[in-house]
């Protein structure tokens, strides 16, 4: 055989070179995996917890989500980072709870091309609330009616006390809240200390569903 004619010291040199190459490859793979897991995992998980939130720092009710310790000086680090990173100025959640919805009650992303209905009920009895529509970056949506929100003071009510708010690009009768652009974020602010206390203690509060009526 050809290999049998190769001197012994030559075979050893070849084997050593192969082992070295294998060792270097192994080290490089481990270094890459280490960096990916440590840096990617560490920063990625931090970004997710600060931007999207988790059960540690948020409470959800249907499509509505709130940072339960927002504005409080004793808020958890994720909530504080979320507030600072997004340039928010929330009132302490001991008084006022701010909910945000990016999807309707069936889970579809809120879009300006669709029409939605929200029936506000069960939020009265001294509770002040406000429902506003924003674009994906928290900016107001331009509309000729110059209408950007309804509150418990400004909304028109049905004879039974409910208030039906319709979100659509084009004018609708009643409480029409114009939407536009592409993505829509809804913000529901509820000012009620008893409500806020219940949310902070983990109590579930029923919030109005967001019903998708039609899409273009």
């Amino acid at each position, binding site marked *: 055989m050809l290999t049998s004619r190769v001197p012994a010291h030559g075979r050893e040199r070849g084997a050593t070179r192969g082992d070295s190459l294998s060792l270097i490859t*192994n080290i490089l*793979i*481990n270094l890459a*995996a*280490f*960096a990916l*897991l*440590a*840096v990617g*995992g*560490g*920063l990625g*998980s*931090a970004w997710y*917890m*600060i931007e999207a939130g988790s059960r540690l720092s948020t409470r959800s009710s249907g499509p509505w989500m709130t940072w339960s310790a927002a*504005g*409080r*000086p004793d*808020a958890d*680090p*994720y909530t*504080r*980072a979320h*507030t*600072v*990173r*997004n*340039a*928010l*100025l*929330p*009132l*302490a959640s001991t*008084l006022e709870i*701010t909910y*945000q919805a990016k999807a309707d009650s069936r889970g579809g992303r809120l879009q300006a091309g669709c029409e939605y209905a929200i029936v506000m009920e069960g939020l009265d009895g*001294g509770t*002040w609330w*406000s429902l*506003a529509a*924003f674009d994906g*970056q*928290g*900016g*107001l*949506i*331009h509309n000729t009616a*110059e209408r*950007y*929100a*309804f*509150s*418990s*003071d*400004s909304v028109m009510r049905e004879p039974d006390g409910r208030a039906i708010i319709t979100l659509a690009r084009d004018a609708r009768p009643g409480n029409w809240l114009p939407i536009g652009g592409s993505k829509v*974020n809804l*913000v529901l*602010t509820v*000012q009620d200390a008893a409500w806020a206390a219940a949310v902070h203690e983990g109590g579930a509060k029923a919030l109005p569903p967001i019903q998708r009526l039609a899409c273009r």
Partner: protein
Amino acid sequence: MPTLPKWLSEVGWRTVIGALLLGGIIHITATLAVPLVSSGPAFTKLRDTLPANRMVVLPPLAPGKQPLPYLPPDALYAMCRYDISVDSLTVTAAMAHAGWTLSLHTPQGDNFYVMPAQESRRGDISLTVVPSAERLGEFATTPRRVSAQETLVASPSWEGLVVVRAPLKGLAWRAEAETALRRATCTPVKRQ
């Protein structure tokens, strides 16, 4: 059953454990560092537009004219950027209707004091903002009433924001709300 790539079998368990530990440290460090290094807190955005220790009534919010994202748009706002490194600050405001609030925030957005208007508590309110005990190195200064109309509030930071929010019932109430907001003041007073 899907097979793992061959190179993955080269990754040792020590590497995984080490990476998870370092990843945890990076996660905690990044989370805690965001409030310290972020360039976009509300206070930074408002610093250039608000003079120190003076109440400013902001124009009604409109698309492209929002001082901050996600501010409730059906309200008028008066804001005062305070700096109590030299003098304390007296704040007065009218709490005209339900939903009106007077709030104090640190540069990081912490709302350390808020006074809402209530059915049983309307009219002018007055408070004095002083540095907290940690800032002055003195005995603890907790929020307390110094008279029937005035409250002493300890600020955990030298700088911060006073925000008076006046929800609008409708266009017809805008002038009335604006008049009430313009009565809000933010005045430095010599520290005793």
